[in-house]
């Protein structure tokens, strides 16, 4: 996984609340191979017409935001389906962070497995950031994960909260399964105790441990 330390990029404002994962990545692309990339599917039906031509009014199609690396959204970003492909579509497009006042829980968790940082800030701050971006199209935002700060175009700094586990995984670019396998003895100990206190979970008619 790519590390996330300090990231500076053009930020695109997107004012609509409830950007669900169906909008981020329509279901018909879910079975595409991971190796081929998901960048062309991001916001597919909002961004492109049926003939694959661009919709000029969509923010990521506008000149200042074509290379945006950050989006500033509204509330309830990434709600809906558990599809991690929604995160892949963002990261494959070079977008590594979304700032919003709230996120869908599953999207929020999926993000960290892919080096993508969801930043929660107060609704008023999010609206102020969007206003700044609209006033100065193409303005940049800097996110410092170590310090847990967002540096706005107006020079103001806003702190954000993040769990220690997610922060460490992102800063070091850790492979979560690799980390967990180090806890294999604890998992085995748990399984032995669980089998003895909840015997029905591994006895017929359920499959027995092979």
């Amino acid at each position, binding site marked *: 996984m790519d590390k996330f330390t300090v990231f500076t990029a053009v930020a695109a404002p997107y004012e609509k609340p409830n950007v669900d994962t*169906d909008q981020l990545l329509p279901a018909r692309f879910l*079975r595409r191979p991971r190796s081929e990339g998901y960048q062309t599917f991001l916001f597919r039906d909002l961004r492109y017409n049926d003939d694959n031509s661009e919709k000029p009014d969509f923010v990521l199609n506008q000149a200042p935001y074509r290379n945006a690396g950050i989006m500033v959204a509204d509330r309830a970003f990434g709600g809906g389906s558990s599809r991690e492909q929604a995160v892949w579509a963002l990261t494959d497009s070079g977008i590594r962070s979304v700032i919003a006042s709230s996120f869908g829980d*599953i999207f929020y968790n999926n993000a960290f497995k892919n080096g993508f940082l969801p930043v929660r800030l107060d609704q008023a701050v999010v609206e102020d950031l969007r206003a700044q971006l609209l006033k100065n199209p193409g303005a940049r935002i800097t996110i410092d994960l170590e310090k847990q700060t967002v540096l706005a175009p107006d020079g103001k700094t806003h702190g954000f909260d993040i769990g220690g586990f997610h922060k460490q995984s992102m800063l070091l670019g850790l492979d979560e*399964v690799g980390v967990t396998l180090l*806890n294999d003895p604890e998992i085995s100990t748990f399984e032995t105790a669980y089998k003895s206190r909840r015997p029905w979970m591994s006895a017929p008619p359920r499959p027995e441990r092979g």
Partner: protein
Amino acid sequence: MKTCFEKIWDDHTVLVREDGQTLLYIATHLAHDGSSHAFNFLANKNLPVRRPDLTFATPDHGVSTLSHKLEDIPDLEQRQVVQTLTRNTGKFGITHFGLDDDRQGIAHVVGPEQGITLPGTTLVCGDSHTSTHGALGCIAFGVGASDIYHVLATQTTWQRKPKQMRVTVNGTIGKGVTAKDIILAIIGKVGTNGATGHVIEYAGPAIRALSIEERATVCNMSIEAGARAGMVAPDETTFAYVKGKPFAPTGANWDKAIAYWKTLPSDPGAKFDLEVTLDASELVPMLTWGTSPEDVAPITGRVPDPAKESDPKRRQAIQDQLDYMGLQPGQLLTDVKVDRVFIGSCTNSRIEDLRAAAAIARKGKVKIPSMISPGSTLVKKQAEKEGLDKIFKDAGFEWRESGCSMCVGMNGDLVGPKERCASTSNRNFRGRQGKEARTHLVSPAMAVAAALTGHFADVRDFL
């Protein structure tokens, strides 16, 4: 003093890191045709499935509802992932209910139906509506591909303990009001992010009075309120439902299991971070009018008028939704014409849903294209045994095979552009059922009322 959630969470905690992250053991994992990415990640690292006995699989998202022959899945990618599921489950020795197996169906219908879903357990699946299983009194939540890969490799997942919310539903629901109306009313009240970061425990007399299948409908849409999971503490209704199911405990193990499950309800005085109360007796049949599940209205109501909204941002948002949905401000909801009806999905496709639908369907003939996809092949066979299929076919419904079908449209069952669909599914997002599709979420009985009249109608007029 612990909540039901905390008792189960603690029972599955392998370890807690200093930063508060919990390594949670997963008692059951359900795989489906969409799990192919996770199996690929496992193969890329050359890792085995740690506990193949704890994963159960069935194809649902991309399967054809016209036929359960593999070659009848029109889309090549969808066909390939169904084949991949057969291959992966065979390779690792995972229990698999394939297309030729009567036990096939939507994972969230199959789990409870087979007794795979049990009270007091943790259950994950690569699908957000995994919250459905909480109806049995377990912690069940959806995860993405990386987390499924993690579960396959380690049988655990790293989670931060969520906050807890209790939704108490008092009173009794009136005639024609269903579990779907209860959950739509709850989402309308708290909003799509009203339960974000929380697990919901549904409680109160109106919830206790629900069957397990009705509780499944309520828990199913917890995610639409932003919750990670929803659950109902197990009770006698739960035990009666589980008993005798194919994978449920038997003999001495049944007695041990029951004794444990009886300890699970939240202790009196257990603390919840958020409490919401509803009066069921005030509810009427509901439907959604907009493009978010929080946009609910009673069938007796009208399409909202943006002009009456003082907040300009909110006014514009409503106008955008009315434009997308092709609705007029202030229009009576019973005047809204419907083009198509879909009855199915993990929300409303169980046998009790089909019985409720058939009770209305026998009163007329459909005026618009209407289809029914039962939640599992066993539900389909049960309905046929009861003669429900005949009632539906006589009324002009299409009687299909089981699968996720038109809820997500991945199998080709789509709502056309600008077509208005009365759907028993769970999401009315833009484009969810097809490009530019206009989805209204309703109960099965309300869906049939729309099918018989060609517009939204108050199902109570049919009783």
